[in-house]
């Protein structure tokens, strides 16, 4: 028989042996001792665009480093984080008491690092001519658990709106956006109707609302900024004249000056203290808090004030662990600056 078949037949035997030889070490060892290990980040789909942007620039500035960014949702990210599986957790809401306890149980110490402000945007399709603004009460009537199966048409929210079906798109239950939205609008965290398209990936929500005239959805402001040609903002009226009268639309200004309520919020990353012993992780966080700031604006979120960044950097260098929001209602009127000084 000819030599090609001969070689290929031998390959049949050799190939698995080669694969077996590559089988060196278990999952915990990867790469040569000198090369930096993968920096793993996971969590909020809201924060992910920022972390991805920072990761990209960081890897470009430091060849040989590797960063992966997952989007399991804020809740999912914390679960992995407290199981000691990730180095950084992206979060669009503060860590909850339950998660604090879980991390304490496994001995995972963390530093809470606010990185930006977000104005949670409520959006509709550009062809939607009727819903230019909504009140918090209307949003609550639309999204609360009691609405499931009952509030299905636009004119059930406001009588002079058209008699058409509403198609709802929103965050998934592992999402910090979900927690924040339900707490701010419905009044109780995680209390929401279940009959809508839910996704931890905000891109799906953008696609859904952008492709459907009858749709309404919500997500972080950056996703609106990146897709404003497909979406239309809904201005929110919180009924409180003290912080801006009438319906206010989210924008960098209205979020910064506190008039876009109740849907303005800080977004965070949580860094594992043990991971900071690795030089690549420490320099990644440093990069995030310095060279990352212009990227925040580029992605579409609102940077903190310079003073706040100085305090955050101080917090990081001092390795201050624990959460500023422990035991306090995250919707209380304390600003971030006030919390950072406490």
């Amino acid at each position, binding site marked *: 028989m000819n030599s090609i078949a*001969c070689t290929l037949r031998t390959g*049949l035997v050799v190939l698995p042996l080669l694969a077996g030889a590559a089988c060196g070490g278990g999952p915990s060892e990867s790469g040569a001792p000198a090369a930096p290990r993968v920096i793993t980040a996971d969590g909020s789909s809201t924060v992910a665009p920022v972390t991805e942007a920072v990761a990209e620039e960081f890897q470009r500035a430091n060849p040989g480093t590797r960063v992966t960014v997952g989007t399991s949702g804020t809740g999912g990210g914390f679960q992995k984080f407290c199981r000691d599986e990730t180095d950084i957790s992206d979060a669009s809401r503060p860590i909850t008491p339950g998660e604090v306890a879980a991390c304490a149980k496994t001995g995972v110490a963390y530093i809470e690092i606010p990185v930006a402000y977000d104005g949670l945007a409520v959006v509709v399709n550009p062809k939607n001519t009727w819903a230019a603004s909504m009140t918090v009460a209307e949003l609550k009537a639309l999204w609360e658990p009691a609405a499931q199966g009952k509030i299905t048409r636009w004119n059930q929210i406001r009588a002079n709106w058209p008699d058409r079906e509403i198609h709802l798109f929103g965050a998934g239950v592992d999402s910090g956006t979900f927690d924040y939205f339900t707490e701010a609008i419905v009044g109780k965290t995680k209390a929401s109707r279940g009959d809508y398209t839910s996704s931890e*990936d905000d891109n799906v929500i953008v*696609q859904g609302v952008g492709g459907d005239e009858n749709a309404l959805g919500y997500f972080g402001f950056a996703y609106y900024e990146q897709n404003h040609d497909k979406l239309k903002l809904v201005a929110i009226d919180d009924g409180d004249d003290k912080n801006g009268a009438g319906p206010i639309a989210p924008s960098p200004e209205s979020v910064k000056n506190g008039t876009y309520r109740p849907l303005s919020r800080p977004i965070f990353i949580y860094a594992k203290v043990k991971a900071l012993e690795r030089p690549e992780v420490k320099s990644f966080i440093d990069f995030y808090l310095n060279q990352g700031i212009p990227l925040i604006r580029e992605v579409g979120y609102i940077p903190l004030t310079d003073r706040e960044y100085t305090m955050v950097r101080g917090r990081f260098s001092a390795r201050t662990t624990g959460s500023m929001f422990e035991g306090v209602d995250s919707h209380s009127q304390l600003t971030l600056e006030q919390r950072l000084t406490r």
Partner: protein
Amino acid sequence: MTTAVAGTVGTTVTTRSRTARDWLFTSFGLLSTLLGLVALGTLLYDVVSDGAGRLSWQFMTSYTSRRAADAGIYAALVGSLFVITLTAAIAVPLGVAAAVHLEEYGGRGRLSRLIEINIANLAGVPSIIYGLLGLGLFVRGMGMGQSVLAGASTLALLVLPVVILSTREALRAVPSSLREGSYALGATKWQTIWNQVLPAAFPGILTGLILSLSRAIGETAPLVTIGALTYVPFAPDGIWSPFTVLPIQVFAWVSRPQASFAENAAAGILVLLGLLLILNATAITLRDRLQRHTR
């Protein structure tokens, strides 16, 4: 002739209307056949027009990025090649060994029949079920994590039934005169198989292998289920490394609403189809070369 003929053919209709109906039927048949072809043509045209402009050296050698214009397919391409090679390394020895047993050694007993039915059924199981198996067994059960090894093992299980079936076909096609000649010269059963039967069946085995690998390259669902990430800006460096593959990268880009990412997805699809084309062309060439020699 218009009147009755043995009841199977219409008795009360005229020849002309039967001919007309026949003509109509022929047209429907032609249209249906064209439907498939037109659909394929539209699909290819759509993908090429969306993505051809995006194909470039930069696209092939860059990693994924948040900026669509900077994003590239490199990590996914390397990941795909790596995973497929490992899948072949696992599936080929197991599959060929199983087929050799069934074809050359297997009795006609109950156990062999059971194994045969089992393999035929496995070939029809949806690919996502294999993903669940991989998740429960490899990722969680054996602790491989979301690594290249877990992905390749899962895909190997997926292609194994096809490899076994096609290898059996190839073995069956080897004329028994070859075997008998070998026995007549005093060779043992295994010597016959290793030196005569397998080389003769090799072209068929190779074709079957390439076909199953072609399917594996395009598989998305099992790898998503075991947890391959959608944002991996580096190429895998070992079998324990996290990874991404071409179909998952396309899936990730399709999920992004911006039109520029849709272009990237289309370009990624063209790379994937190109890879499949190369794979199948290699298979056909190799098979022809080998067939000529073993004639």
